[in-house]
């Protein structure tokens, strides 16, 4: 009976687990393979050096994402949050080719960037470039299979399978009463025109910018967000619009009128769009539109925004209006329908670029027209302070300048924009780096304030350091009763020598390991407990450097005296000559006697110890670490700060693409390859 049941179970499992299912899964597998074959060859890994402005300086960090080649000419689609704010972009093709890429255009509003491969850099292959085709995202239905492809590391590719969960996803805040747009790190708004394709193909961090592919092998979306089993892709139809604009104009051009709208559902109406806000001074404002009006027609099209999902479509229609051509708007106010002509203008970039002026310790941002309008700044003239770096001239200005202030003049010259600011700074600097105090005017909300900044080298007063003490070039242990007994000196007190340093007076006088010091300068050492450990050192410190002091020691059971000249404590690391390399952002110091003893360097070992590697700086992202001993830079030995200065000056002059730093790290040696982007390293004069 048992046997029969088990056979029955077995057969039923075999029947039910689809022979039908088997061919269905085979078919799916075939479709997946097909789709993959059409897009995989065009999938690229994008690695970048990302640049962020924070704390008054630029910080760099490596970054990575995915992209897909969409033209034979090498155009790549990816996310703006992958490729925006970067200083170097390198793409790796599936066949292993590594090629640089340039930005053609960014479109933060849709979080898309279009790059172009530097095809002239292809050296290993002459095959035509593979590229993928964009499909029709409007044809997607909930339940369709989609593949998310990405290339998180250089050669590996990931592919995940899921279904479309929602074809028109928008994000509202948690109350569901307002569309919440994403804000990118620099403050750019994004997602205004996007209705995302929500799916459940697993998105991993490296997938950003990678394609969402249907089973026909067409790219139907660009993956932008994801996590926790859900992914969101920018629909290919929106992407195609952006791509076409970029390929035609080199940028995305949009119309703008200055309204924000809400769905009319809550008003109990079924047509129109409710204006929730009008930007003061905007085309809509000038045309007489007001918050509360319900737009029912634009141009010759009716307007219907009943639900939040229809808001991005509304904005997209405005974006597609041609600037400087008036558009007839029909709207309802207080129950009556009105008409007005709105003179659509070109949508300008909202967020201005940031710039760093390193010598001042300042980062500033251009003020764009929209920024000035929306933030109700009194004027567009001026540069916006975004960060002040501690320890640099701008921090010392009194009254203080803060982030959010707008600098309107520098050294007497007006600074309505970035270029005039740089010009004013250059002319305010004195000829030969002499110190000069420069006045500047800045606005803070409704106040206009004056302050001054000191430029140039500060007059350095001489400055002394810690006074050196007399020092014995040996290590000792206090002779406890146990130790004394062990070496046959029961009842005696003092210190047993455990190490004698090379090249010292102690060594020269003949002090040896095992000697027991019982008196110094005729004063007996009453030291026999652990807490007496410092007694010898303290006794010696009271002597003057150069004095000849008699040490009573016991060696091999015999009492004898050694006269040792008191020498200076070897230069501590704090006194070693150091140099801060501001361009590559790291600092080194010369190695000291104690370093040589500790690391067992030769007396003649040359090298410089890294004492600082600024996080996000060029040396740091290349992997140079604190405590590395730099022995050679681009094959030149560096032993002294003079060597170092000389070699780095040469580097700044010749600007090699790679700087090879040979270091000792622990007990191994290592090569650190620094690849600075030279026009970022020093603000060229």
């Amino acid at each position, binding site marked *: 009976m048992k046997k029969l049941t088990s056979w029955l179970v077995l057969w039923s499992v075999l029947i039910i687990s689809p022979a039908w299912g088997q061919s269905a899964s085979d078919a799916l597998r075939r479709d997946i393979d097909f789709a993959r074959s059409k897009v995989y060859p065009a999938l690229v890994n994008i690695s970048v050096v990302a640049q962020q402005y924070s704390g008054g300086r630029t910080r760099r960090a490596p970054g990575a994402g995915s992209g897909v080649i969409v033209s034979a000419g090498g155009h790549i689609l990816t996310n703006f949050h992958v490729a925006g704010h970067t200083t170097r972009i390198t793409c790796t093709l599936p066949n292993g080719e590594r090629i640089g890429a340039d930005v053609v255009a960014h479109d933060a509003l849709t979080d898309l960037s279009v790059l172009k491969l530097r095809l002239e850099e292809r050296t290993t292959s002459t095959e035509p470039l593979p590229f993928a085709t964009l499909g029709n995202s409007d044809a997607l239905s909930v339940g369709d299979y989609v593949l998310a492809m990405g290339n998180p590391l250089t050669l590996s590719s990931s592919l995940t399978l899921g279904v479309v969960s929602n074809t028109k996803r928008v994000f509202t805040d948690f109350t569901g009463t307002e569309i919440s747009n994403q804000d990118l790190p620099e403050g750019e708004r994004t997602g205004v025109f996007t209705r995302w394709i929500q799916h459940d193909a697993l998105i991993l961090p490296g997938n950003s910018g990678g394609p969402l592919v249907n089973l026909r092998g067409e790219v139907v979306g660009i993956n932008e967000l994801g996590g926790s089993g859900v992914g969101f892709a920018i629909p290919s139809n929106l992407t195609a619009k952006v791509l076409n604009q970029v390929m035609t104009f080199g940028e995305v051009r949009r119309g703008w009128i200055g309204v924000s709208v809400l769905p009319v559902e809550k008003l109990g109406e079924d047509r129109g769009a409710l204006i929730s806000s009008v930007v003061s001074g905007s085309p809509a404002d000038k045309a007489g539109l007001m918050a509360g009006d319900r737009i029912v027609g634009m141009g010759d099209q009716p307007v219907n925004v009943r639900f939040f999902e229809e808001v991005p479509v509304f904005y997209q229609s405005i974006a597609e209006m041609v600037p400087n051509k008036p558009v007839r708007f029909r709207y309802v106010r207080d129950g009556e329908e009105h008409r007005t002509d709105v003179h659509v203008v070109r949508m300008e970039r909202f967020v201005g670029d940031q710039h760093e002026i390193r010598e001042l310790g300042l980062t500033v941002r251009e003020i764009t027209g929209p920024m000035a309008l929306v933030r109700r700044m009194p004027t567009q003239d001026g540069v916006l302070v975004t960060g002040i770096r501690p320890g640099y001239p701008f921090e010392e200005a009194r009254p203080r300048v803060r982030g959010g202030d707008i600098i309107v003049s520098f050294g007497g010259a007006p600074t309505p924009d970035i270029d005039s600011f740089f010009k004013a700074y250059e002319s305010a600097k004195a000829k030969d780096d002499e110190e000069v105090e420069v006045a500047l005017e800045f606005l803070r909300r409704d106040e206009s304030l004056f302050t001054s900044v000191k430029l140039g080298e500060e007059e350095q007063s001489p400055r002394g350091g*810690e*006074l050196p003490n007399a020092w014995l070039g040996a290590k000792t242990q206090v002779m406890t009763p146990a130790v004394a007994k062990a070496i046959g000196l029961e009842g005696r007190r003092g210190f047993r020598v455990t190490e004698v340093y090379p090249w010292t007076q102690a060594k020269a006088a003949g002090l040896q390991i095992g000697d027991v010091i019982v008196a110094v300068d005729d004063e007996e050492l009453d030291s026999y407990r652990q807490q007496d450990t410092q007694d010898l050192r303290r006794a010696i410190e009271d002597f003057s450097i150069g004095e000849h002091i008699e040490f009573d020691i016991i060696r091999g059971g015999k009492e004898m005296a050694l006269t040792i000249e008191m020498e200076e404590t070897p230069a501590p690391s704090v006194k070693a000559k150091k140099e801060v390399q501001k361009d590559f952002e790291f600092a080194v110091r010369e190695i000291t006697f104690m370093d040589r003893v500790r690391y067992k360097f030769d007396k003649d070992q040359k090298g410089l110890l890294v004492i600082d590697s600024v996080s996000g700086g060029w040396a740091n992202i290349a992997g140079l670490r604190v405590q590395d001993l730099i022995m050679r830079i681009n094959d030149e030995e560096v032993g002294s700060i003079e060597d170092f200065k000389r070699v780095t000056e040469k580097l700044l002059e010749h600007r090699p693409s790679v700087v090879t730093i040979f270091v000792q790290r622990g007990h191994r040696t290592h090569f650190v390859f620094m690849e600075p982007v030279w026009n970022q390293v020093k603000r060229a004069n």
Partner: protein
Amino acid sequence: MKNCFLTCAALALLLVAPASLRASDFAGILDKTAPAIVTVKVVLKMEISMMGQAQNEESRSEMPGVVVDSSGLIMISNAEISSDRMQEALAGAGLPGQVDLKVTPNDFKVIFGNEEKEHAAFLVATDTKLDLAFLQVENTEGLTMTPVSFADAPKAAVGQSLVSISRLKKGYDYAPYFTTGRISGAIKKPRKAWIVDGSIGSYGLPVFSEDGAVLGVLVTLTPTTTEASDGAGIGMLMRMMRGAGGNDGPVGTFILPAKIANRVIEQSKTKAAELRKEHAEKKAAEGDAGAGG
């Protein structure tokens, strides 16, 4: 008869008068030493870094100092211009080393007596262990120096009475005043020094015997080890605050014997001369370059 009576009365008065200093003696020491006590102003730049985040603060600080050489060498307490003592105290109390406090003194100015003029000075040397720092007034033209000499100091003894001179701050027009105390004990570790009883003195300033002879200088010394009983927390912070003067905290107040102070004073004199020479040479070199270039 009358003479005898008078003499006897005088003798009796002498016998009855207390053996300690009379008011006029105190005043005498004050008058004699006050000119050597100066006021030092400095800008302290404090950088507190905690878990990778750094914060900068700048503030002006004022403290008394003493002229120790006619060249214009001034001695002050090192703890007033550096965070070393505080860091040692924090480390000793076993607080996690996540908090890094770096104090950089800049822009020294010295005020003699209650004059208005502020004389520029530079830092010559520090001795963190002994808690002393030395400044050199850059230009001593027109100034009369009345240095306190720490050489040839007599030996001190437990029980001995002490006098110290200090100055109040600008708000009180730098008024000089004295304080008294007694040597109440001696330590051998971490080094030889006298324990002091009474609210005597300011750190970095000399301490005198009743006869006006220099005995030493008031300093803080870090103990060899910190016991668990010292503990962290409010109690420790309160004990660490200056003015408490007690020796039950992480650092204690002691009198450093004059002989030891003299050693570092001599070292600093040499160093000051060196630095001056170096600086002058450097300026001359720059001057030449400027003229030629």
